[in-house]
Every structure is written in structure tokens, then in C-alpha cells.
């Protein structure tokens, strides 16, 4: 499987070239174009089994209940994937030795040997991180395609690092994370507009996004027509 991210960074799409018989798993609605002979199967299952309950848990991460599996015909084929909102994309390669935790809405697609599960990240993260209660836990081997709101940048953490809660795309499980207030006092945490942040400890790769979709949405809110 060859993946190329095109049209970076504002309206990125992933062009996935599949060999004959090769499979690509994608979030529901993510395919925007493909060779005509590629076949599609919709299911709540992924590698590692689970089916229905895994689908329910995946929904709690903000990801879709159903996933589409694209299979190339014997002569091979191509599939284009794109997310709904503006932003960039990145490819992360799982090699079996590491695992990745991704924000549910960041997942676009993966190779067929990637196992997708949802993880409860603890009450603190659920209540305060501003993200969903569950995060997507990716294991196995193969590529994962992630998207971000705005640009995406990688940080190699060695020691500790702080990221605002709305700016996390994905991180390796070798990193431990905790939610804490941004300043020393509650006053600076709240009045400074930073609220709560995630503190990462350990060694591993961390992917962050340059913008926060909720902040953009709320900034447009006063200009939108009120709901009846």
C-alpha cells in the first residue's frame, strides 16, 4: 500500500494505491473517489474481532460506528480519502512494537492489520480534556492515516511536555498523560483562558494540531443566525 498526502496543508487528501487484493479500512463517508473496480464492504468489525460492541465504543470516541473496507481487484486500484473539515493529514506507521492513541475524530483510515479499539481515558480526561471520553487505541502493524483541524506538527517528547487539551491529535502509548490546570493557581488557569492542559511524561512521539475546531466554532457563533 502506497499512501501519498496531497494538497497539504489546508485541504489535504490521501491518495492510497492498493496492490491486487490489498485492503484499506476507512471511516464511514471518508472515500471521495476511487477506481471503479474497487469493492466496498461496510461493517462494524475490525481486525481483532469485537463487532457490535467495538462499534458502539468507537461511536463514543466520536468516530463512526461503521467502517468501510475497500478491496482492490487483481490489477490493483486507488482510493482517495478526505475528512469533512479543513486541515492537514499525516501517516503513522505501526510496526508492532509501538501502539498509538488517537483522538476519535482524527482517524481517517488504516491498513487491514491495524486493530482499532476504544479506550477509556479516565474520569479526569473525560470531564476536563474537552475531548470525548474515549480515545481510539490503534495496535498491530501497518499505516494509519490521521487528520487534523488546521496544520499538524510532531513533537518528539523526552521528559515532559504540555499541550492544550484541544490540540492533541495522537500520541504513542509509551507516553503517560495527565490533565492538570495550566497555571499554578486556579485564577491564572481560568482567567488566562488556558483552562486545562495535558501533561505528557516519558519518551515517544506526539502529534498536535495548530488549531482547535471548537474555538473556531465558538468564534463564529455570534455571527450565526440563532436557533429557533
Amino acid at each position: 500500500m502506497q499512501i501519498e498526502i496531497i494538497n497539504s496543508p489546508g485541504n489535504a487528501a490521501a491518495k492510497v494505491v492498493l496492490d491486487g487484493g490489498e485492503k484499506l479500512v476507512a471511516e464511514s463517508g471518508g472515500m471521495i473517489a476511487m477506481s471503479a473496480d474497487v469493492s466496498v464492504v461496510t461493517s462494524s468489525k475490525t481486525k481483532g474481532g469485537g463487532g457490535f460492541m467495538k462499534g458502539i465504543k468507537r461511536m463514543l470516541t466520536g468516530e463512526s460506528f461503521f467502517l468501510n473496507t475497500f478491496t482492490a481487484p487483481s490489477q490493483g486500484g486507488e482510493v482517495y480519502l478526505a475528512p469533512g473539515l479543513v486541515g492537514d493529514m499525516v501517516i503513522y506507521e505501526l510496526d508492532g512494537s509501538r501502539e498509538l492513541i488517537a483522538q476519535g475524530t482524527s482517524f481517517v483510515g488504516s491498513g487491514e492489520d491495524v486493530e482499532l479499539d476504544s479506550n477509556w481515558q479516565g474520569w479526569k480526561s473525560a470531564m476536563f480534556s474537552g475531548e470525548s471520553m474515549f480515545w481510539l487505541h490503534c495496535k498491530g502493524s501497518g499505516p494509519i492515516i490521521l487528520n487534523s483541524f488546521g496544520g499538524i506538527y510532531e513533537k518528539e517528547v523526552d521528559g515532559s511536555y504540555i499541550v492544550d487539551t484541544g490540540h492533541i491529535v495522537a500520541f504513542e502509548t509509551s507516553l503517560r498523560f495527565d490533565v492538570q490546570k495550566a497555571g499554578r493557581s486556579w485564577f491564572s488557569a481560568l482567567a488566562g483562558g488556558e483552562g486545562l492542559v495535558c501533561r505528557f511524561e516519558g519518551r515517544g512521539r506526539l502529534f498536535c494540531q495548530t488549531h482547535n475546531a471548537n474555538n473556531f466554532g465558538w468564534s463564529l457563533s455570534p455571527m450565526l443566525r440563532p436557533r429557533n
Partner: protein
Amino acid sequence: MTDLQFEILGKPDYGFLKLRLAAGQSLCVEASAMAAMDTNLVMKTRMKGGLMASLKRGLAGESLFMNEFTAEGGPGEICIAPGAIGDLAHYRIQPGKSIYLQSGAYVASSPEVKVDTKWDGFRGFFSGTGLFLLKVEGNGDLFFNAYGGLVEIPVQGNYVIDTGYIAAFEDSLNYEVTLLGGLKTSLLGGEGLVCRFSGQGKIWLQTRQIYPFLRWLWPFRPQKNND
């Protein structure tokens, strides 16, 4: 006629068109897209192709009026900014070959290029391109844009595009609207209807659609105050 001398800046996210017109050369531009120009350019507002053609263009989501800019007394520069944030592409129209644009995608063209509106009927309704398509033919340069990035796909045989992501396609291609895969994929897989193209020619795919963004914005609407 002479080819237009142009440069596309700000690709791929903020496609912006800069042209240098020779003395006496003209350019047709969609209404309100002119961003900057030299002072020797003269603007004339016209209903290109006559009243009927303009009214039909209105059905395809374009303005009834088009502006024609002509460089007088020497060469001159003009900059054009389409309304939507996204990519911009150039296409050289050859006689006898035409290209179809999604409604609203037209930006500018040589005056020798004819822009017509074609009723695409229910196929158009289901394809997400709108009930009308713009058919562009003649001999000259055409510029079009889309919300999102533009990806040129050479088709030989068959190709599938999700409805709503078609920005433009050559008329040598045929398409029909079908369901993707089985009923389960159509209803639950989020892919719904797709356009199945056949033949030989190019398609321009847009990497984003405005509707998912608008749907995402919905919950941010303020509550109405009933006091």
C-alpha cells in the same frame, strides 16, 4: 487569438489568478471577482451570450452579468480572487471539445470561450453538482475554482466519485449516478450515492465540500432569546 499570459498564486489553499493582458486584449470575469488591476483596464458589464444565456447561467448558480476587462493603450495587469477558499485551475479549451463545470465553479475565460448552461435533470440533482451544469466550449483559456483542493484524475475506463466532489469533467466522459456497493454501504457506510464515470478524459476532483462544514457549524448557532 493569443493565449492569455497568467500565473496562479497561493496554490493550493488560496488560489488567486494574476494575468497580464496585451494591449487590446480582453478577459471575461465572473461578477465581483476582480481584486486589483492597472488603471488602463476598462470594465464593461455585459450579459454574455445575450439575455437567455444569462438567465440560464443564473440557474446554474452564476451571476447573470459578467464583466469584460480590456487593456487600453498598452498592456495591463489584473488580479482575480474567487469567492470560495480553495484551489484554482487552468484549462485550455480546444475547438470541438468542451468541459463541464459544477455550478458556481466558473472564474474567468477568454472572450472567445462560450459558457452555456445545461440541464442535468435528476441525474444532476442526485450527483450533487446541482440541477444545472455549465458547459464551456470554444477556443481559448478557462479558469475555474472549487472549495478545497483540486485533483486532476485521468480516467481510462471507469472511475467512481462521491457525489458532491466533482468540480469539472471533460465531455468525452459519460456518467451515471448509482449506489456504491450494496444497500448496507449506501445506507450505513456513509457513502450514499456515487457518480460512475466511463470513457476517456479528465475529471477534476475537489478535496472538500462546503456542506459538511455547514453541518458542523450548526450546533454553534446561538440560542434565540425570547424575552
